[in-house]
């Protein structure tokens, strides 16, 4: 069904596109994780102002479509004189979006740490930062890994929206080859398959990580 000539023609483009998709996903996940951690800590341990900012951020970013967020960053910001190229615009929107969800995952993980663990850490004379890093975080991570893994997988799929702001990733390549050859079915099927393979590998990695962190339990 899938002609060899189509595949040989699309292959080099798909390789580049795959690299772009992974780049978008990984970069946004890392930045989003940093944002998520800061927001989670602000919400859990910050003063009233910080808490309010964190709650508002999470509420807005989770309560509006990612596509709108992406369009606002790429087409909206130029009205303030902020012109972003497609890739940075996509990364900013994806990171902010993922950050809101990850903040909630991290918060739930940290809340799951028994109060006695903090007390034990404090009673050894640890300051907050050390108690968090050495005692609370490793235990929170174990709880947070399944939802965070799911968020990473969702993020990989969300990168397909970057095609709307002209980023040349998997979905954009499928669309452009599809439109020039009228072989939409094959191209979207191939790309769907690629997303599925990436995410299956991610699931596997998540399982390995879960097992490793559960070793002590």
């Amino acid at each position, binding site marked *: 069904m899938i002609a060899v000539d189509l595949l040989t023609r699309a292959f080099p483009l798909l390789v580049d596109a795959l690299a772009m998709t992974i780049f978008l996903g990984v970069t946004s996940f890392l930045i989003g994780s940093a944002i998520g951690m800061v927001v989670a800590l602000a919400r859990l341990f910050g003063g009233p102002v910080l808490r309010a900012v964190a709650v508002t951020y999470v509420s807005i970013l989770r309560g509006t479509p990612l596509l709108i967020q992406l369009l606002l960053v790429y087409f909206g910001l130029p009205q303030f004189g902020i012109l972003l190229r497609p890739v940075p615009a996509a990364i900013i929107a994806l990171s902010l979006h993922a950050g809101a969800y990850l903040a909630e995952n991290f918060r739930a993980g940290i809340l799951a740490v028994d109060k006695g*663990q903090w007390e034990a850490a*404090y009673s050894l004379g640890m300051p907050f930062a050390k108690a968090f890093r050495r005692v609370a975080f490793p235990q929170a991570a174990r709880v947070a890994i399944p939802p965070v893994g799911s968020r990473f997988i969702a993020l990989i799929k969300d990168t397909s929206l970057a095609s709307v702001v002209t980023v040349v990733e998997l979905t954009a390549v499928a669309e452009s080859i599809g439109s020039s050859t009228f072989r939409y079915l094959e191209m979207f099927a191939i790309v769907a398959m690629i997303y599925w393979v990436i995410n299956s590998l991610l699931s596997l990695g998540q399982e390995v990580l879960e097992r490793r962190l559960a070793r002590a339990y």
Partner: protein
Amino acid sequence: MGHREDCPVSISGLHKRFGSLEVLKGIDLEVRRGEVVVIMGPSGSGKTTLIRCINFLEEPDAGCVRVCGVEIPCGGKTKRPARTRQIREIRTRAAMVFQHFNLFPHMTALGNVIEGPISVRGMPKAEALALGERLLARVGLADKRDQYPSRLSGGQKQRVAIARALAMEPEVVLFDEPTSSLDPELHEEVLQTMRALAGDGMTMIVVTHEVRFAYDVADRVVFMAGGVILEEGPPAEFFGNPRHARVRSFLRLVDGGEVDADTVANGALWAVGSAGFSEGSPV
């Protein structure tokens, strides 16, 4: 003024309330170096809150706490950096053993013991490992060094927790009902460890219902009820001839071993916070 070098813990005028409930109503307590003080009393009497105030796991509302010369200015909850540092200083000198152990589940037994020395005291790893192994041997668990807490029995967990507290080389160890969450047959191994510790001259403040331990090991027994210290004295005197009827009836119920002290405490006899108790009345 009045500061004595041989006095690791000095508490004066300590008050603590949770909302509308006044848990500590002015506690004065001096604990000398090398002394073992057992705090007894019905639950809700404030004993746990008292020792949690010593290392500031609870912030006292009023009163002074001094541990080995480190004194936290009376009252006030201001979180100035200097105050936070002083509190940490006190915590490294007054180690805590918890009712529910609170071992770090993601670290091995040895990892639990060396965590404080390495990350708080800045001890080199090799030195901390040697100290950790020595302390695990001291509590009889040298062979469990690489086990995670989930693989240890309750009694073993508590002994690791004691080793973890000792690893800070504290001036005083605070025990918050160290055997209360253990099955009865596991009490003795923990109490043995504590006896040995007392024998080595460690200053200890122990909240417990273990009458036998108090009788054998304590230099002084303090009885709390309703947020105040009702009676205190050497164990022979305290157990042999308690002055307060309230103490007498408490001991009668606890000592027999037939009734769990908490059951007594929760009974009508010890209605928490009842101010209408008249001293010396027959019970």
